[in-house]
């Protein structure tokens, strides 16, 4: 059975290779091949899952060793896989949601001439992501880690002819590289500390290492997680990443890749448990990001960017939970899975709306779409209810547990983190209600307005093929797009209840992550009630602001905070001034220095020799007789010297 694990990765990898090298003759069938291989991966995942279920709770780890990868001295890295409950959860999420999004993309990318390549990249992403969660050592994980970064780079910049997309792709890769720096250093630290970086040996011998080293490793892993999961301070790329096609945003930048950081922290749980300082840093990053993302999400008028802010915020919840240690790991992963369902559903809904609206992304030009797109409305609405934590739906179960766990951290920290999580819940309700109302309710603001000004390149260039720049005609999307949305909506509604009731998910994951109940200063019921109250307050404010009053087509100036939030709380401006400008000045001056100083010193030495030789050259005047004189003179000197020597 364990020999199937490699196939999980191999199937989409094969797809990527075939589609990217296959050339034009695969243009007509490429999307089908890609979807099929993603589905193959999912089926294998299900087979393995049923196998795991058939085993005892402590026997659910499968290992497959392919070959020794880099053996140098004490440094051993293997191509080897490890499938346990944690990986299994991810495998199902990735391949399942991945397959759905492949299906969705068939319709969504129908008019794009480079669709084959798009599916190739998607398959590459699946392979890398599965490698990431299946690796049995940190170096192989690193390969998957950068592989998903590459796929993300290629897909964000899929419409490369748009400079904004190319820039966004580059930015995503670069910011991620900063995170990768952390992962590299963490692996090196592990190697110097433990002499290995395979999960098993490292996590088992944590007790032998000093806390200082463990804290350093933990902080470096946190840096890596920040880059991949768009956590403060490396969050700036996620908003721009929305330049990519919407299925990509749904799969990579909502459901799977951005949650890799949470996986990394949960996987290294034993290490973090022994390094409380690193754990504290993780929770702080999570709490800050969950508020940061939520605030940004409130101010954006671009539907995808609003959702991106929301993603950031929800991952903040997960990171916060993962930082809480054994009281939070299970809930972090649980929220990750439910979030995978509803956020992917929301993004696909947004894509469906854009598909019907000539790829308009500005919510101020939406409105009243519920009549025109009933399926999209219902599925998006269910996703909306799930994310704000409406009782009974997925988000309710998973988010509520995280808030409880945050309080259970105890002490002042518990109160602060719990308070932040509660506040985040209220803001979530606010911005999601805002998105919902602006899109599906109210006046039909898109009438009498060409949605996209022709001189500006459309966000989704597929529109050019549809040839419209006039007033949009909202319509429901084709079946291939609505079916995945319905499936995901189904998951958004029921997954939470299925996982949460009777602690099914907890018992499934506990053998890997460990679990302990915290002692919360406030009762679970109190937390739930407080969450509900805040939810109603948040949604109510949004309704008062956007439901009762007409939405202006041009954004009002807004308060200082709103304006800052529109600009991602000035993070980009900071980056621009400090890093980009500073870097430009540095490189320019270095180019100058290299040309004048470094080159100059060496050339100066050469020039002085040149001057000397210029003088000496005068002696070579070409007159044979002057040479003869010097010869005779020299000979005479030698003779004289000889005679003198003898005389003396």
């Amino acid at each position, binding site marked *: 059975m364990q020999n199937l694990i490699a196939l999980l990765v191999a199937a989409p990898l094969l797809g990527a290779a075939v589609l990217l090298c296959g050339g034009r003759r695969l243009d007509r069938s490429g999307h089908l091949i890609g979807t099929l291989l993603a589905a193959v991966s999912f089926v294998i995942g299900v087979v393995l899952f049923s196998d795991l279920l058939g085993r005892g709770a402590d026997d659910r780890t499968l290992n497959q060793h392919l070959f020794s990868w*880099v053996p*140098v001295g004490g440094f051993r890295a293997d191509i080897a896989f490890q499938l346990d409950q944690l990986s299994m959860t991810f495998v199902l999420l990735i391949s399942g949601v991945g397959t759905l999004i492949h299906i969705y993309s068939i319709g969504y990318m129908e008019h794009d001439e480079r669709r084959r390549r798009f599916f190739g990249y998607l398959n590459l992403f699946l392979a890398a992501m599965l490698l990431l969660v299946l690796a049995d050592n940190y170096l192989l994980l690193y390969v998957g880690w950068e592989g998903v970064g590459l796929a993300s780079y290629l897909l964000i910049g899929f419409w490369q002819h748009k400079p904004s997309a190319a820039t966004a792709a580059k930015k995503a890769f670069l910011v991620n590289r900063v995170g990768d*720096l952390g992962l590299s*250093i963490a692996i090196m630290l592990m190697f*110097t500390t433990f002499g290995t970086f395979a999960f098993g040996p490292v996590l088992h011998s944590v007790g032998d290492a000093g806390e200082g080293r463990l804290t350093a490793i933990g902080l470096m892993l946190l840096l890596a997680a920040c880059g991949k999961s768009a956590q403060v301070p490396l969050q700036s790329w996620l908003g721009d990443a929305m330049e990519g096609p919407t299925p990509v945003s749904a799969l990579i930048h909502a459901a799977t890749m951005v949650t890799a950081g949470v996986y990394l922290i949960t996987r290294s749980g034993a290490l973090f448990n022994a390094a409380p300082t690193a754990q504290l840093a993780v929770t702080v990053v999570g709490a800050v990001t969950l508020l940061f993302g939520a605030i940004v999400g409130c101010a954006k008028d671009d539907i995808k960017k609003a959702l991106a802010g929301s993603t950031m915020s929800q991952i903040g919840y997960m990171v916060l939970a993962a930082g809480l240690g054994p009281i939070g790991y299970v809930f972090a992963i649980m929220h990750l899975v439910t979030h995978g369902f509803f956020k992917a559903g929301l993004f696909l809904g947004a894509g469906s709306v854009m598909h019907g609206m000539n790829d308009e992304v500005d919510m101020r030009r939406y409105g009243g779409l519920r009549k025109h797109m009933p399926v999209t409305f219902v599925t998006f609405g269910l996703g909306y209810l799930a994310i704000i934590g409406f009782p009974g739906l997925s988000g309710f179960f998973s988010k509520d547990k995280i808030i409880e766990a945050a309080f259970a951290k105890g002490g002042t920290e518990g109160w602060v983190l719990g308070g932040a999580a509660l506040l985040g819940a209220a803001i979530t309700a606010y911005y999601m209600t805002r998105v919902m109302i602006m899109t599906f309710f109210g006046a039909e603001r898109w009438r009498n307005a060409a949605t996209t000004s022709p001189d500006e390149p459309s966000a989704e260039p597929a529109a050019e093929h549809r040839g419209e720049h006039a007033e949009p005609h909202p319509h429901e999307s084709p079946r291939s797009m609505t079916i995945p949305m319905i499936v995901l909506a189904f998951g958004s509604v029921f997954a939470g209840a299925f996982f949460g009731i009777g602690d099914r998910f907890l018992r499934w994951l506990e053998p890997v992550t460990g679990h302990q109940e915290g002692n919360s200063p406030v009762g679970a019921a109190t937390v739930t009630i407080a969450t509900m109250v805040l939810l109603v307050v948040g949604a109510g404010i949004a309704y008062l602001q956007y439901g009762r009053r007409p939405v202006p087509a041009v954004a009002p100036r807004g308060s200082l905070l709103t304006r800052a939030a529109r600009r991602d709380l000035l993070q980009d401006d900071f980056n621009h001034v400090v890093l980009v400008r500073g870097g430009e000045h540095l*490189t320019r001056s*270095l*180019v100058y220095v*290299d040309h004048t100083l470094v080159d100059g010193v060496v050339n100066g030495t050469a020039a002085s020799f040149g001057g000397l030789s210029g003088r000496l050259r005068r002696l070579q005047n070409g007159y044979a007789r002057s040479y003869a004189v010097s010869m005779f003179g020299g000979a005479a000197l030698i003779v004289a010297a000889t005679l003198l020597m003898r005389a003396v």
Partner: protein
Amino acid sequence: MSFPLLTATAALPAVGAVATAAVPAAKRTAAKWLALLVSLATLVLAGLVLARFEPGGDRYQLTESHSWIKAFGVRYELGVDGIAVALLALTALLIPFVILAGWHDADPLETNSSRWRPTQGFFALILAVEAMVILSFEATDVFLFYILFEAMLIPMYFLIGGFGDRAHAGSDEKAAAQRSYAAVKFLLYNLVGGLIMLAAVIGLYVVAGNFSLQEIAQARADGSLSMATGTERWLFLGFFFAFAVKAPLWPLHTWLPNAMGEATAPVAVLITAVVDKVGTFAMLRFCLQLFPGASRWATPVIMVLALISIVYGALLAVGQRDIKRLVAYASISHFGFIILGIFAMTSQGQSGATLYMVNHGISTAALMLVAGFLISRRGSRLIADYGGVQKVAPVLAGTFLVGGLATLSLPGLAPFISEFLVLVGTFTRYPVLGVIATFGIVLAALYTLVLYQRTMTGPVKAEVSAMPDLKVRELVVVAPLIALLIFLGVYPKPLTNIVNPAVQHTMSDVQKKDPKPAVEAAQ
């Protein structure tokens, strides 16, 4: 006596060079085919060397030894260890691609046939370089090595100065002046390095009484040849200076951007992927073996210089406007990594450095040759003259991206393994330096992606809108290199198996052991 395989591997391209040069002027194409066939045959011989070489066997294998200049004890002594075998294979592998990529680089310009550049000479010179580089990897006699080290400057000089880029066909006068400046600069830097090395070689002879690497190293190891500390350090510096110029190490690097910028892309590959490797190779073989004490003494300074190379080269690459100069500065950064790995004196560092030499050769060749194809289409080296190439020539853009990703050491491609090994090897002994060097990976991503973004993405520029995609010949050049990058990235074991034992020998030469992990050390 067995068949002298090593001599044959070096002699074949040498004979081929003469034969190619002798092909009559009218039969240019025949000369090209001859050169290609010779280089392929050399590759076969190199494959034989690889096959005959036993990774676990003697340190030097396939040895040959003949008396040459008796009066000075100079011998014609050949032998290869794992490191040399790897680099020999790399050289033999790259030359056919270089020849194929430069297939039309030396054709006469039809418009200006009076300034016809002899095709035969171009290919003959490439083969001559190959012969000398291969022999220098094989030589275990210091004097023989020195002669080759210097002699390979001559064909390189003519290749750089004589065969410029078609990109400048328009402004011939100025281009020719720049080119000859670059060639003279290349020659002068390396000659000065070589002269200082000559002094050190003579000094070594005075001290040791012969030139045989094995004998001297043996005598050094068992203590029968002791040098005064000062003498050893001076000799070490003499050798190291020459190698550092060739490698090149900051601040002796300024000849490289000029040379690589002005030379045609295949010649640029020859410089950075093949000839420069002799410098780093010689550090491992001569500096560490002959002067272990001095090597340890100089390590801190060299490590810092290597670190400066890494960061400085990368930063300057970001600031370049010229594609080829950008690749040149990126190479300077990579050579910094190689030297860092060598002098970290850990098995990971040195194995990584050796792998790095091989992988850097392949990845730079891929990137530079594709860049050459790009440049030959548009006739300009300036990044700003391109834009949106991805749309008109997707295969070219795709291969360019893969080359770039290899340059930034993406995991899954070969350079990642070597770079990570170097970093780990450095980190285990010098954590702070290791961390700073790791910042190089961010900068590498920056210059590569900026290059890709500016040339390949965005709106299609009018001048590139008619650009044809890669032709069959060009695909034949690029595809195997990319395949090799992926293969060695996934399964580098054949290479590590060869290199590891050689590195163990070097490690014992310098009397260093890998640091123990903290957990074990505590027990």
